[in-house]
Every structure is written in structure tokens, then in C-alpha cells.
């Protein structure tokens, strides 16, 4: 373009276009990125170190803070890992409630993503709508779990409290409302010629390299590869519910956006099915006194499909009342560093924030 000399541009940590608190150091020639480097650590709280001082139950309150926009998959994965180590059974009702909660979490996170994806391209109206409507999901969470963001609800053995009275009706109503609103969103975003123009052909992840690069979740399905932990290794009640995993070819921001658009619909359908089929019975298989609760020695590697893709917890127990090691593999761990550094060169700087949002880079997941 006009100035063809190389400059270094720091995208973040204080920058409206960055997701969370991280930094992408860009070498820029004109408007084109020639080299990108991710710098993280601004949100490093040393969770995995702190867990050394906390017992199995206390860790659970800490772990949901790994990634702020979606604490529930973290809780769920940790709970499942501990259950696997202990061989603890989860009541059927708890499985359904967990499924509902994780899908609600998926929807709320996607609504936030709508805001991020459109906001990073300057379409603030959609963000105002979707993030505003996200509050209705958070209201559901509040009724169910007692908190808006950090629910701390799915703990080893089941869930913490049963569904409150009238919650199921409220959930149905919210789903109906959201479905109506989704058409509005899609008209504004996906039918928008300018958005199509912006999103198509940007930030392409090659299909043949995607798995090897460690791409997971919507970005992987955006390349046309159908992998989803909910199908590969079904957990909770997913094997009893009908749903489709959407895939789109292309591997660009547009394909990823379409995948997410379809997934939100699938989530609504899963929630409806789960609410229909919700079994009765107990919701919580009581754990022993938390201060003296020991978990048999062993290791567990448990995966869950979070909003941004597959996350896993590697949990090691040495038989004491504290975990030996709880190591999170977040979806953003590969996305935010190696994948980002590979696909950013050659892109326009206008698209950096756009791509960051479409990959769902969540820095606290990288540095923890």
C-alpha cells in the first residue's frame, strides 16, 4: 500500500481488539502481517500450583476460573476425571442436568462469540443484541446454580442442587425466545454482504494439516473434518440424545462462523430433548467429608467438547486428599499460539482481531 516499510505492531495487552489479556506481536509490512508471535502470561494465576495447596473439592472451585467465558466445561471435565479415578457413579438425572448445563454454557458462550466476532468487524449492533440476550441464559444459570458466571455446580458425584421449581418451563421459554432472536442475528450477520466479504477466504486453516496442527472444535469442523468429543467419546447423556455435528468446507473465518451458527441451533435442540427426557431420581452421589476425601492413586485423561473445542484434564492422584497434578489442555493452547502464528502471516492487520475471535483464543487457558 502506501508505506511499504516494516513496522512492529503490538496488538495488546491493552487493545480493544484482543480477546482477553494477551499480546500478539506483529511484524507488519504496509497492511500485511508478515510475522506473528503470541505473548501470553498476563493472566497467569498459577492454578496448577495452587492446587497443590487445595484438596480435591477445593480445587473444583478454582478450576472453573480457567477460562472465563465458559467455566462449565472445566467443572464438568474435572468432575468426570475425579469420578473416573474414583470409579464413582453419577446418577442418571445428574447426567441429564449436566448435559443441559453444558449446552446452556455453549449457547451463552456462542452469544458472546457473536458479539466478539461482529464487534471485531465493527458491527456493534449484533454484539449489543446477543450479549444482551445472553443475560437470559445467565438468568437461567442464576436460578439453577446461584451465580451468573462461576457456577461451581457440577461437582464430582453429580450436581450440587436439584432443578428449582418452574425452571424447566423457564428454560423452554428462553429457548423459544432465543430461537426467534437467532433469525434476527443471522439476518444481520450471515446475510450481510459485507460480513461475507470480510469473512470469506480469511484465516484459512488447511484441511490436510488441521488435525496435525492440533486444531479442534469449530475451527476443525470448519475445515470439513467431523470430530466432536460428544460423538467420539460420548459422555453424560449425549449418547441418548439426537444431534448433528455441523461441518463446513473452507477452513476460513466464514466456515467457522457457519459451524457456530448451526451449533447453537443444535444446542437448543439438545436442551429441549434433555428437558423432555429428564429422568427422576437422585441428582448427587454424595462424596465423603471433603476435608478427608482421598482419591485412589492413578491417572485420568478426560476430554470434553467445550465451546472452543476439545479440552482435556490430565489428573494424577497419589492417593492423598490433594490432587498431585491437574493439567488442563485447553482448546486455545494450540489455537492461540502455534496455529495463530502459522495462519496470521499474509493476513491483513484488519483481520487479526477477526481471526482471533473466530479461533476462540482464550488466553487464560494457555497460561492458566
Amino acid at each position, binding site marked *: 500500500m502506501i*508505506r511499504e516499510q516494516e*513496522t512492529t505492531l503490538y496488538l495488546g495487552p491493552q*487493545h480493544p481488539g484482543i480477546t482477553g489479556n494477551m499480546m500478539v506481536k506483529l511484524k*507488519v509490512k504496509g497492511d500485511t502481517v508478515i510475522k506473528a508471535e503470541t505473548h501470553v502470561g498476563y493472566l497467569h494465576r498459577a492454578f496448577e500450583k495452587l492446587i497443590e495447596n487445595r484438596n480435591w473439592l477445593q480445587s473444583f472451585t478454582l478450576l472453573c476460573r480457567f477460562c472465563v467465558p465458559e467455566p462449565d466445561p472445566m467443572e464438568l471435565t474435572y468432575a468426570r476425571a475425579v469420578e473416573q479415578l474414583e470409579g464413582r457413579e453419577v446418577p442418571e438425572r445428574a447426567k441429564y442436568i449436566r448435559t443441559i448445563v453444558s449446552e446452556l454454557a455453549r449457547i451463552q458462550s456462542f452469544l458472546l462469540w457473536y458479539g466478539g466476532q461482529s464487534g471485531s468487524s*465493527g458491527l456493534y449492533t449484533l454484539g449489543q443484541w446477543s450479549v444482551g440476550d445472553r443475560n437470559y441464559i445467565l438468568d437461567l444459570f442464576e436460578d439453577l446454580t446461584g451465580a451468573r458466571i462461576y457456577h461451581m455446580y457440577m461437582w464430582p458425584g453429580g450436581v450440587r442442587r436439584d432443578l428449582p421449581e418452574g425452571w424447566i418451563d423457564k428454560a423452554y421459554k428462553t429457548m423459544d425466545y432465543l430461537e426467534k432472536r437467532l433469525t434476527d442475528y443471522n439476518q444481520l450477520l450471515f446475510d450481510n454482504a*459485507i*460480513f461475507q466479504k470480510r469473512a470469506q477466504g480469511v484465516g484459512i486453516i488447511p484441511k490436510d494439516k488441521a488435525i496435525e496442527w492440533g486444531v479442534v472444535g469449530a475451527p476443525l469442523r470448519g475445515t470439513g473434518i467431523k470430530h466432536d468429543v460428544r460423538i467420539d467419546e460420548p459422555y453424560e447423556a449425549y449418547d441418548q440424545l439426537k444431534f448433528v455435528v455441523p461441518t463446513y468446507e473452507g477452513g476460513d473465518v466464514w466456515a467457522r462462523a457457519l459451524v457456530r451458527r448451526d451449533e447453537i441451533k443444535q444446542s437448543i435442540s439438545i436442551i429441549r430433548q434433555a428437558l423432555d427426557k429428564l429422568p427422576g431420581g437422585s441428582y448427587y452421589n454424595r462424596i465423603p467429608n471433603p476435608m478427608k476425601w482421598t482419591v485412589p492413586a492413578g491417572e485420568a485423561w478426560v476430554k470434553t467438547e467445550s465451546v472452543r473445542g476439545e479440552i482435556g484434564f490430565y489428573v494424577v492422584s497419589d492417593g492423598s486428599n490433594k490432587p498431585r497434578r491437574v493439567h488442563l489442555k485447553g482448546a486455545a493452547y494450540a489455537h492461540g499460539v502455534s496455529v495463530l502464528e502459522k495462519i496470521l502471516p499474509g493476513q491483513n*492487520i*484488519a483481520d487479526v482481531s*477477526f481471526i482471533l475471535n473466530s479461533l476462540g483464543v482464550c488466553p487464560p487457558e494457555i497460561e492458566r
Partner: protein
Amino acid sequence: MNDIIFKIGGAFLTAILAFTVGMFYAGLRRKITARVQNRVGPPIYQNFLDLLKLQSKRTNVAHGFMGHMAPIWIIIAAMTVLMFIPILQNNLWFENLTLKGDLIFLLYMMVFGSLGMALGAGQTGNPNSAIGVSRGLSQMVGFEIPFVMALVALMLQFKTTSIADLMHFQFTSGHWIILENPFAFLAALLSSLGMFRYSPFDIVGAPAELASGPMSEFGGKYLGTMMTGGAVFAFIKLVLFVDLFLGGAGNNSVEGIMGTGLGLLELLLKTFLFYMIPVFVGLVSPRYRTEQAIQFFWKWPSVFGILAILWALYKNGTLL
């Protein structure tokens, strides 16, 4: 002597009017935006408070001489341009400086403000500002071409380079230029989207990309002054479009202060309606990339511009 008093008084009044209307429109825009976004939004006078607050900042950091100069440059440019825009037709107060060739003069002067900003931003050393300036200049190259084409079409069609003459023509003939040369209007309208720098053409200050671009390092008084300049410029653009295409304002036969009032009312109505076009477009559009924006301007607006010139030539008989 009276003439001079009217001129000077008129200049003051124009300045105040431009500032007030510009700021109110910005507030109105925020309110409308809020309503489209399903929310209440700030009070309509919010921008005045913002400005007052910015001006009352206790510290103001500037980066070098141009850092000081840029806002002043902008406000000077705005005022200068304002003085050459006839606000109301046939009105002693709001006629302002009219001279032959002011259309061409305006074309130059309107770039002048951006230039000051560019120089000021360049001195801050912030890479975001630098990139923002380069984007701004690129975009300007984009929208100026169809805009100039539209103006040239008008000049050719009506054989004049004076805004006052164009207004006079519309007044006397009763035909607005929007109908006389619709292609010129379309070209100018589309390039006006770029001039207002709302979505999809807010690429200069794009927050998610460049923080706020050239403005990154300006705060306090400097930012406040720039806001004032921006508000005045917005008014200028609106009035210019109304003057050129929508028949101007003040075309009434009522005498005295009432006439002026009615004229102003007409002006407000027309400018507001015209203003809603970029606002609404901005509300529903994501941002273009720089090269996409330029492509856009060089595509349809430019086609309309060429058509406008051809139309003008056809109209005044040169073509055939």
C-alpha cells in the same frame, strides 16, 4: 457597514449553529443507535458533557509541536470551510462568504483538516496512528474520486463553480439537483458514507484493529477540540449536501426573523434526513478492509460519477 456587521454576526451565528447542531446530531446518533440495539442509550446532550469533561481535564499530554497544532489545525480548517458554506439561501445572516469557485476551494479545504490530523498523528510515534493515517489517506483517495466526479458533473451541468449559484438555480427552477442529475447524487451519497467514516468505512479509527488510529495519543483538550472540529465538519458535510442536491434551505418567502427560523427548520429537517442515511448504514454494516473500501468506491460510486458526468454533458448538450 451593515453588510460587515451582518457578515461578522452571521459568521458567529453560523459557528454556533454548526457546533450545536453537529454535537446534537452526534448525540442523536448515539440515541438512535441505542434504540436499534434494544437499549436506552445516553441522554441526547451527552456529547456536550463529553466535550466539557475533555476540556476540563487537568493534564493534557502532547507530543511535539504538531501534536499541539493538529487539533487547532482541524478546528481552523473546519471554521474556514464553514465560512464558505452558505447555510441559508437569500439570508443576510447565513449567507457567509460566497465567491466564484468556492466549490473547488471547498474540495481542497476539506482535505486540509485531515492533513493536519495526519501530521499531528505522525508525530506521536504510535504505530497505530501511523497506520491509521495511511489508511485514512488511502480511503480519502477512494472516496474523493467519485465525489469530485459528482461535483464536476454539477459544474459541467450548471456551468458554475459557486455553491450559491447552484442553490439559486434550485430555488428559481424549483427542481432539486437530486432529480436533475440523480447519478451525481448517488455518487456523492455513496462517497459521503466514506466521508462520515461510519461503518463500513470506519477503517481509520477502527478500535478493534488500531485502537483509535490517529487519535490514539490525543486526549483531554486535544481530543475535545478534535471532537468539536468533527462535529462542525459533520454539519458542513450535511449542509453542503443539502445545498447541492436537496435544494438548500431558506427557500421561503416569509420575511424577517420568522423566515430565518423557518429556513433553519427546513435545514435541520433536510440535514437530519440525509444524516440518517450514513447512520443507518453504519448500524447494520461491519467494517470493510482498506482495500475493500477503496474497491467499493472505485466500483459503484465511480460508475455513478462517470454516468453523472455523461448525464451532465448530455444535459447541457456537449455530448450530443
